[in-house]
């Protein structure tokens, strides 16, 4: 019995995980979400921006991370459009192009924002560091046209935006180490304020930059997305999925405890 428990068939674990995901999805419950300081800081920064100021939203992720990062992007866009803050969208990650474009259009339609006036989506350009450095001099030199082919200089919203001097904040939504490139090249070189939204696996990487103030705020994984949804009072997928994640985390902890008890009892018996 103990041996069976210690070396439990992994298919049983898979079935338990599947149930821990499916059941809370079918019967959603609402757990209280507490707001972390880095998330609150980002929300406050955008909330205090005057109308018609501009932020840059960077979709540095692909489909594999959309479950965590799309809810953040949506929540930030909703806040910006509600506050009349202009949004310059772009990506340094080729597969982020279609996702970023679709997502901005979706939220713009919901909030009645107009392409070219309230937001622009510039698309993708290769050469991560070079794109970040180049935009410090002139955004229109890097992105001659937006994603839809309109010359950047002809976009009404871009008339008063030349480089980072007119961008209040860069928010990098990233599933890799691109946030560090933004910090190195945009923050250090041009003193650009940076905030980030990252997947759960790279949260710990970001804390040194939070402590130095090189990141003014941080949305951490799906938990951060749920916190942001709570702050903008628009509960969506972030809130649903953090409740699902709660059950999966609980299941893993219970499995680990059971595994350890079985392991120690077995070791005792062997002695």
């Amino acid at each position, binding site marked *: 019995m103990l041996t069976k428990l210690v070396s439990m068939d992994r298919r049983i674990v898979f079935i338990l995980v599947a149930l821990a995901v499916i059941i809370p999805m079918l019967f959603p419950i609402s757990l209280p979400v*507490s707001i972390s300081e880095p998330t609150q800081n980002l929300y406050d920064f955008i909330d205090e921006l005057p109308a018609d100021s501009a932020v840059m939203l960077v979709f540095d992720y692909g489909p594999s991370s959309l479950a965590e990062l799309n809810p953040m992007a949506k929540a930030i866009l909703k806040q910006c459009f509600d506050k009349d803050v202009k949004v310059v969208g772009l990506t340094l990650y080729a*597969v982020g*192009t279609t996702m970023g474009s679709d997502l901005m259009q979706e939220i713009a339609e919901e909030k009645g924002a107009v392409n070219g006036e309230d937001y622009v989506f510039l698309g993708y350009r*290769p050469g991560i560091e070079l794109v970040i450095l180049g935009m410090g*001099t002139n955004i229109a030199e890097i992105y001659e046209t937006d994603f839809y082919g309109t010359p950047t200089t002809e976009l009404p919203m871009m008339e008063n935006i030349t480089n980072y001097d007119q961008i209040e904040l860069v928010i990098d939504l990233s599933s890799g180490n691109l946030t560090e490139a933004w910090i190195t090249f945009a923050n250090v070189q041009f003193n650009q304020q940076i905030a980030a939204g990252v997947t759960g696996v790279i949260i710990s990487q970001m804390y040194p930059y939070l402590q130095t103030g090189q990141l003014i705020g941080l949305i951490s994984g799906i938990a951060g997305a749920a916190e942001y949804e709570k702050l903008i009072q628009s509960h969506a997928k972030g809130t649903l999925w953090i409740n699902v994640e*709660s059950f999966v985390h609980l299941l893993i902890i219970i499995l*680990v405890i059971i595994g350890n008890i079985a392991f120690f009892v077995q070791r005792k018996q062997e002695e």
Partner: protein
Amino acid sequence: MLLTQFSPHSLSQGIYEEVLNWARIITPFALVFSTITLLQTHITRIRRQTEHWQYSFLVFAGIAIMVVVGIPFGPQNPVFEWLFNNVQLPMDATMFSLLAFFIASAAYRAFRARNLEASLLLITAVIVMLGNVPVGDLIWNKLISLTPWADTYPDGSSWMKQWILDNPNLSARRGIILGVSLGVISQSIRIILGIERSYLGGGD
């Protein structure tokens, strides 16, 4: 490029701009080289008929279809968008979702308190996992409500997680960042001075 960072002179800034422009032109060629390397790898696999060599044809088919649709018609073409939204997106998301199952299975097998180090790792992992989801604070608040310190220590689960991230994690991360940065600087100097030539295919 290094020297241009120390001078605001127009000549220095001109050089900086020029180098950036050149670099921007050269960078897309990396994509061409990577595609050629990928094709070479899979041609070799087919020629040698290594294990699962048949799947290499799928790589060629994927590249051919996306290139034929994407290059002439652009990424906004409905067929290109359909292929992205209905093929690449679900496949990519599915692959990543499978991680949850494997991580759960691996955690069950690997997280054993065999010694002090493993026990510390186990305890830290449990605290961070609980603190990262709302149910952690819910359990904490229920338990603490049974004690006289209910009002003194609310939301202890997320507080402990935050403390771990802010202190031990931050210190270790900073050490790693400093170590890696010093390594990159010393390696760069070796390459610039011609001491390190292994990237050219040399022996050292």
